[in-house]
């Protein structure tokens, strides 16, 4: 017998359905609102920073470099959804959330003199950088790690 159509239960079901579940507290709606707004504010902050804030130029460059690397890596992965890379490039769906640089070695190349006979110290820094992006819609994380080598020239004064 199908319980949904049992005639003896129909009145009982109607009686039970007539009871209204207690409303959720107003604080719950507020909390959901804040959590959803948090996602949106990430997107807006990111977009503004790229356009107007010169301080973001370097991180944005790193983000672009990382995204390009990620797209390049993903292009080697066989996937039926070939249009996803294009979508990723045109819409800011992933946000840079962390840049970690680990110094692996520092080589002191000694004191050198410029053409003007001014002393300067040359340093070579070998590091490993790790860029992390997050998709705020579902929390997916993407991390790219690559080696990096930088040469520093420091002014020297003898006293």
């Amino acid at each position, binding site marked *: 017998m199908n319980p949904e159509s049992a005639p003896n239960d129909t009145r009982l079901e109607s009686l039970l359905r007539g*009871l209204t579940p*207690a409303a959720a507290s107003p604080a719950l*709606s507020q909390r959901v609102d804040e959590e959803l707004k948090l996602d949106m504010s990430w997107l807006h902050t990111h977009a503004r920073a790229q356009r107007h804030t010169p301080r973001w130029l370097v991180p944005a460059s790193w983000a672009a470099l990382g995204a390009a690397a990620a797209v390049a890596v993903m292009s080697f992965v066989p996937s039926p959804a070939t249009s996803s890379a294009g979508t990723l490039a045109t819409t800011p769906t992933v946000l840079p959330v962390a840049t970690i640089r680990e110094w692996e070695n520092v080589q002191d190349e000694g004191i050198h003199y410029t053409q003007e006979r001014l002393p300067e110290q040359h340093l070579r820094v070998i590091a490993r950088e790790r860029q992390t992006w997050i998709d705020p819609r579902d929390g997916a994380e993407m991390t790219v790690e690559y080696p990096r080598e930088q040469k520093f020239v420091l002014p020297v004064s003898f006293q």
Partner: protein
Amino acid sequence: MEASFDWKQTFNQVAPQLVLYARQLVASKADAEDVVQMAFVRWWRRFPEGDSAHIPLLYAAVRTIALDQRRSDTRRVNREAKSDIALPHEDAPTFDPQPGQQEVAAIVEKALHDLPEQQREVVTLKLWGNLTFNEIAAMTNESINTIAGRYRYALQALHKKLAHLKEDLLGETTPPPINILPFSSPQEALS
């Protein structure tokens, strides 16, 4: 993102039912609201159009998160029991009864609490979540016959609890017992 503008409309429609369902799985209303918050945000990120066809997935998210939370709470309760920390007990009402429904609401709340959890879950999803047996079966990974059986048993139990209200509210009258013996009492038969 403009798609988020009307999440409140969907939320207001489903939140009371979601909290009611979550309360069948976790200890308090506060815990239930935490579960609903996580489930709704997760669901809305995935379906920002708020399509009602995806509501069963919202209930499934509530179930998954509630069971996860309960597992971690069990560990916490065990720890706190060992350290003699008193646990809060909450008795917030489950229903918001209309005038004249207070007695029924109290009985149903108590009866729901007394049901086995699996029956309580099915009857909540069916009656207040408006899910079909198919949707509940898919969500709980059970057969549709199992779900229908649990619902049947739950209704029977609720029927018993509400028996004394049947005449007034359900329009049923208890028929007098049929005397199949030619005697009015066993004593008369023995005398």
